[in-house]
């Protein structure tokens, strides 16, 4: 059976891994390779590196650390942050990233999804979506790395998911912003709705605080993987314990 994936997310700023609450107040949680290898050794199925300042600073993430990570890591990893051209994507993939994830640049130029998918194949093009529930609707926000530059896009989340899949996205990471960093659980309702429109793998993000939250989202929303950051960085949840628990609960998990 295909295993559900447990995916630590490492937000990178200034060559270090950081974490903020609802995208604010970043604190340093460690070095990039050091954390990558720690999570690999603990049984992480995949890693995602987000250069959280790249889109807001109008620059593209440096591939230099990507090669260093690829050298030591023997599990797949995805890099995100300000990738807005075929050239930038090629540099990251050639440096050893297995997938690239685009977020704000896709909102500015949706054709970018088609271009990248045509150039490298759907399998390595992930679209990250930051979605905010306004009390009525799920709406997409861009440039979420910096609260002062964050924008409402006017796009509705579910239709954006459908559009990027149509354009060639091979995977969706849906970050539910209301829950991010709050550790109150994933947004099951939103992820169930997203699952219904996602014919490609769907990864849940935002809200993990306890092992039960992973079980709930993997079972109830049937997502392909669950991404989390602070609970892993702060050792609130250990990956080996989490995986044992999920196996006991009957989920297909790589031990």
């Amino acid at each position, binding site marked *: *059976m*295909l295993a559900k994936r447990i995916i630590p997310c490492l937000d990178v700023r200034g060559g270090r891994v950081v974490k903020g609450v609802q995208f604010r107040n970043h604190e340093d949680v460690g070095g990039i390779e050091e954390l990558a290898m720690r999570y690999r050794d603990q049984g992480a199925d995949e890693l995602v590196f987000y250069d959280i300042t790249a889109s807001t600073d109008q620059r593209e993430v440096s591939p230099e650390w990507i090669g260093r990570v690829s050298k030591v890591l*023997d599990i797949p990893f995805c890099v995100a942050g300000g990738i807005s051209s075929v050239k930038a994507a090629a540099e990251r993939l050639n440096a050893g990233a297995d997938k690239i994830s685009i977020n704000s640049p896709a909102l500015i130029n949706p054709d970018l999804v088609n271009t990248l998918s045509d150039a490298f194949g759907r*399998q390595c093009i992930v679209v990250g979506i930051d979605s905010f529930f306004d009390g009525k609707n799920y709406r997409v926000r861009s440039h979420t790395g910096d609260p002062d530059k964050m924008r409402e896009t006017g796009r509705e989340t579910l239709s954006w998911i459908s559009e990027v899949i149509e354009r060639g996205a091979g995977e969706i990471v849906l970050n539910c912003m209301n829950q991010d960093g709050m550790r109150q659980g994933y947004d099951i309702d939103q992820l169930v709705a997203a699952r219904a429109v996602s014919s490609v*793998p769907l990864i849940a993000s935002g809200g993990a605080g306890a092992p039960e939250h992973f079980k709930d989202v993997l079972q109830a929303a049937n997502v*392909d993987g669950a991404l989390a950051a602070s609970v892993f960085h702060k050792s609130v949840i250990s990956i080996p314990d989490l995986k044992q628990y999920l196996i006991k609960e009957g989920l297909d998990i790589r031990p």
Partner: protein
Amino acid sequence: MDIAIVDTGCANLASVGFAFDRLGVRFKITRDADEIYAAPRVLIPGVGAAPYAMTTLREAQLVPVLQNLTQPVMGICLGMQLIFDESVEGGETVPCLGMVDGRVEALETGDLPSPHMGWNQLENLVDDPLLDGITAGDYAYFVHSYAAPVSSYTLAGSTYGQAFSAIVRQGNVYGCQFHPERSSATGAKILKNFMEIAA
């Protein structure tokens, strides 16, 4: 040099090289026919689409070179698809290297998300030196939308919507549909076994 990695022009060459670095294996990424002929072992990597990769190999005049190799050869991911007779992508039949009998077709995933992406289990293992230390149920990392059906050349299968070949062997030619360079200890073990197969 212990192994030649064929430069298929695809993106994951660095990752494959790093995997051999971690095993202490000396490799060379090359398109040079003489170097490939002379190498004790040959690896055909690849990600992306078969038509592009086959065009690259044809332009580099490597098709007959690869077809005539007698040393242990392994294709991984797209490279595994290239070693078959042909691949059917988007309704078009792409002639491939023909080093293993059979054709590669779209994976019928039914209601499951596609591409098949993530860690899946190896099953129905055949006794072969490549699988020394590998147990049915071990996980490997897959990313693909096309696959070779199970055949008499299958050394290990896997299932996603349908059963397919995860590892094949025909004579000196091996193929892995998953990415051994990204399959942690299981992948490293398979690469190590490949390096120890008698040339």
